[in-house]
């Protein structure tokens, strides 16, 4: 009797990387070690700068925090991160599998539509949901009107509750899992799945025992992204009055006008994040799954019938309705009300400029993050000499930024950039024709983009790293023996092979930068407003109708990368399918001949 694992290793191809072999294909030290580590150092500098205050511990302050809010903030954070993690994992994985492995009317549409909530910042869905379902909102007001109820005559689920918060965050964050899971499922070799079915496993069992473990790196990466997003969220949790570590950091930061305690709390949060990442690494263990690229033929979809078909359609409708249609309808209704009301001068605002700023910041940051991530992940992948473990550990350090609230990162960037800004500006004035009295780094977008890179490098890096892990080192071996240099290998072999992963990472960074608030607030140059900022300012003032205008604009801008994301994913998969089906036909023919 063949065991499943053996079947899997023959079908999809499993290689044990021996270190002697890796050394054989090693690159020159500056590309595999010095350059990546220098980049890692540059990215971690702002975090390191904050370390300086971490050891100035004020015992009395910490005692006070421990006796008051800290235990609850800590348990709240764990509750939120765990619930959102579970929610996004289940919804993201289940729906990705549903649209990849089954066929039902509308599937092609849902497959794309379910990605759209990615374009909406959490705080926007948050304030929309609260205003729809709160006491003074339309739903409860209508119910009271119908039944003549008063305040104490009925109970209605409290939307501004921990459960409501988990719901809202899950609805905006599940696409992180869904997107990566869908790519993973589509890229998977159908051979192993079909072989498992031949072995008598049901579709569901094959999914649990084969497909999920194979897609593990991407599922884990997506879930961790969602969990870290939930952990560092400020806008939504503060709107819901749910104190988490992140919320407390901002309160300490701004309420006490002293960054020390806030920074120390941020490091407590990093520890929680590290534990999460370590847990994931541990679960992944030593298992490395290499799939032979090009052999994957997409899974054959099973058509659904009867009740199952209706259930699948209903589930997709419900998710898409809750996460997208409902909030967008409410935003549209507000925009229409705003158009009709003559009293507000929202239309004087220059939304095309805000949109332009948003696209510019997000585009530049996404490109830089992706390029640097590729250099780091690729360089360290081929480094097999001394200090391999240490350099890998350091590289993982770049993912820390994602666990730190934007306000804290902005402070770290200022600590690093401020001392050199004067000198750099003088230098630029003397030699580069810089003619402004503005500082070159903090007076322009440079410091802000630096902060974005620190904050979001994790997304670029984990996507690139996970994708690279699936390329067999045979590639390097072959290319090296033919005398190709590292840049040639990287740009001609790896970059094209992982372009889906790279594009996914870049687009995610784009969307994240577009939605970012606190670092943008602190570091943007004069006169530079983004759509997210205008939405935030107007919504905290309680001007929901006015806020709906830039909120809808974010949605429109955000749809561009999300739509691109779909195209990128489909092109590569379709291209491969054509190629493999052609080849399988050839195989069939040769079989006939034999």
């Amino acid at each position, binding site marked *: 009797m063949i065991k499943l694992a053996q079947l899997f290793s023959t079908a999809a191809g499993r290689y044990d990387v021996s270190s002697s072999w890796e050394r054989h294909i090693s690159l020159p030290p500056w590309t595999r070690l010095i350059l990546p580590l220098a980049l890692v150092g540059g990215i971690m500098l702002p975090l390191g700068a904050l370390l300086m205050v971490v050891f100035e511990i004020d015992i009395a302050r910490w005692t*006070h*925090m421990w006796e*008051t*809010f800290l235990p*609850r903030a800590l348990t709240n954070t764990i509750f939120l991160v765990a619930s959102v993690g579970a929610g996004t994992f289940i919804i993201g994985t289940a729906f990705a599998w549903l649209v990849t492995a089954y066929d039902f009317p509308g599937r092609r549409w849902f497959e794309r539509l379910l990605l759209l909530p990615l374009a909406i910042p959490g705080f926007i869905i948050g304030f929309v949901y609260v*205003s729809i379902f709160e*006491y*003074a909102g339309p739903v409860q007001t209508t119910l009271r009107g119908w039944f003549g109820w008063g*305040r104490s005559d009925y109970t209605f689920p409290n939307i*501004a*509750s921990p459960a409501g918060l988990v719901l809202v965050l899950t609805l905006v964050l599940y696409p992180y899992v869904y997107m990566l899971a869908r790519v993973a499922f589509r890229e998977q070799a159908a051979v192993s799945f079909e072989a498992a079915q031949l072995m008598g496993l049901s579709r569901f069992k094959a999914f649990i025992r084969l497909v999920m473990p194979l897609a593990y790196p991407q599922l884990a990466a997506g879930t961790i992204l969602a969990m870290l997003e939930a952990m560092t969220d400020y806008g939504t949790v*503060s709107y819901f*009055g749910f*104190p988490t570590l992140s919320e407390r950091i901002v*309160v300490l930061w*701004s*309420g*006490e*006008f*002293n*960054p020390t305690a806030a920074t120390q709390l941020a490091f407590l949060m990093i520890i929680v994040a590290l534990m999460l990442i370590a847990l994931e690494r541990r679960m992944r263990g030593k298992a490395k799954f290499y799939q032979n690229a090009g052999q994957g033929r997409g899974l054959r979809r099973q058509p659904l019938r009867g009740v199952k078909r209706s259930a699948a359609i209903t589930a997709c409708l419900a998710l898409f309705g809750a996460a997208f249609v409902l909030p967008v309808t409410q935003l549209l209704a507000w925009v229409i*009300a705003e158009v009709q009301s003559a*009293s*507000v001068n929202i239309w004087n*605002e*220059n939304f095309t400029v805000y949109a332009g700023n948003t696209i*510019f910041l997000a*585009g530049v940051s996404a*490109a*830089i993050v992706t*390029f640097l991530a590729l250099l780091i992940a690729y360089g360290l992948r081929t480094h097999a000499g001394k200090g391999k473990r240490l350099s890998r550990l350091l590289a993982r350090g770049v993912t820390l930024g994602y666990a730190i609230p934007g*306000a804290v990162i902005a*402070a770290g960037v*200022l*600590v690093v950039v*401020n001392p050199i800004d004067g000198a750099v500006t003088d230098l630029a004035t003397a030699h580069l024709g810089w*003619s*402004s009295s*503005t*500082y070159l780094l903090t*007076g*322009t*977008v440079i410091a802000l983009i630096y902060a974005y890179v620190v904050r979001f490098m994790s997304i670029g890096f984990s996507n690139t790293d996970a994708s690279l892990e699936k390329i067999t080192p045979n590639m390097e071996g072959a290319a090296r023996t033919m005398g190709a240099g590292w*840049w040639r290998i990287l740009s001609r072999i790896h*970059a094209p092979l992982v372009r889906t992963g790279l594009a996914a990472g870049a687009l995610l960074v784009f969307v994240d930068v577009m939605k970012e608030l*606190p670092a943008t*607030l*602190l570091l943007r*140059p*004069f*006169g*530079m*407003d983004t759509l997210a900022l*205008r939405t935030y*300012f*107007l919504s*905290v*003032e*309680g001007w929901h*109708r006015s806020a709906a205008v830039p909120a809808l604009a974010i949605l429109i801008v955000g749809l561009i990368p999300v739509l691109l994301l779909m195209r990128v994913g489909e092109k590569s998969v379709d291209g491969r399918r054509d190629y493999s089906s052609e080849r399988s036909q050839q195989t069939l023919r040769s079989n006939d001949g034999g």
Partner: protein
Amino acid sequence: MNRVLVGLIALVTMLVLGLAPAAAQEDAGVLNIYSSRHYGDLEAPFVAFSEATGIEVRVSAGTPQDLLGRLRADIQRGDRSIADLFLAIDAGVLSLAADEGLLVPVESEVLNANIAEPFRDPQGRWYGLSIRTRTVVYNPDNVTEEELASLNEYRDLADPIWRGRLCMRPAGHIYTISLFSSLLYHLGQEQATAVTEGIVANVSRYINSDTSLIRAVAAGECDVVVVNHYYMGRLANGSEEDKAVFDSVRIKWMNQDVNGVFFNINGAGIVKNAANYENALRFLEYMSQAENQCGEPTCFPGSNYELPTNPEAELNETVASFGAFTLDLEYPLWEYGQYQAAAVSMLEAANFGFREN
């Protein structure tokens, strides 16, 4: 490979193009403001100032505390900031900035003559340009005459008759912090703590928006809330729906029998080593003139239904309709900063802003 290179070149070009506007705008007439007012640089009074003087106003907005952090980082670095003027909606933040040497004292006959003494720093490092009070708004359908008569001071909100009927803004917001700092000042640590605990026991929901607080009162979710008065002004002049909200609630001025209603200022100070010092001073003097302190939307106080700091200026009509009241002049604005940190501690200890669910 070539594609990657082309991409990189495109990237660098984009970056340079993005920087270009910042470099291009280099005339004499610029004023850079760190502002915690959220209305961008399109605010009517700023536009009016630009038209009158030819000086271009550029604004970087944020919460007062975030901007203080930015300013602190700027000055601690190179003793210079990219901002010329620091405009904050909180006297405590302004005092802290001044005491840390981030703002410079200004000698101006015009400012001293125009702005009444209680509303400016005795050392001339910051000047109040408008006044906002923070007081009670209630729903007359759900609050009896008797209950209303017992609600005269902020500390009366701790009375158990308000249990489950009071909504407040969470502890992290500067409005809450400053209001509770005034309790500390007037009542002392012990009494203020007891009042805070009583209020926490009464709160049914924390809502992080003054407008939403008023809407919640109008809908009957809460019976009593504490808000800045100008939000009532905005609702009174808003859409039909807003006016309906305004009509179903009432404003009540707190502490009228004792020290007066709590207030804060929207004020500004000139940043140390400001590149455009003259323009910043001109801005302050312009905004302090009686005709620019008016109640019309083109004036600094009037654009937001606030009160003028120039006693000669005319009041906004809507605000005047709220009735006469006394301001709390006992608690000096320049001492707000000293009590805020203690207020945060007190709010934390009382679990203000936390709700058991």
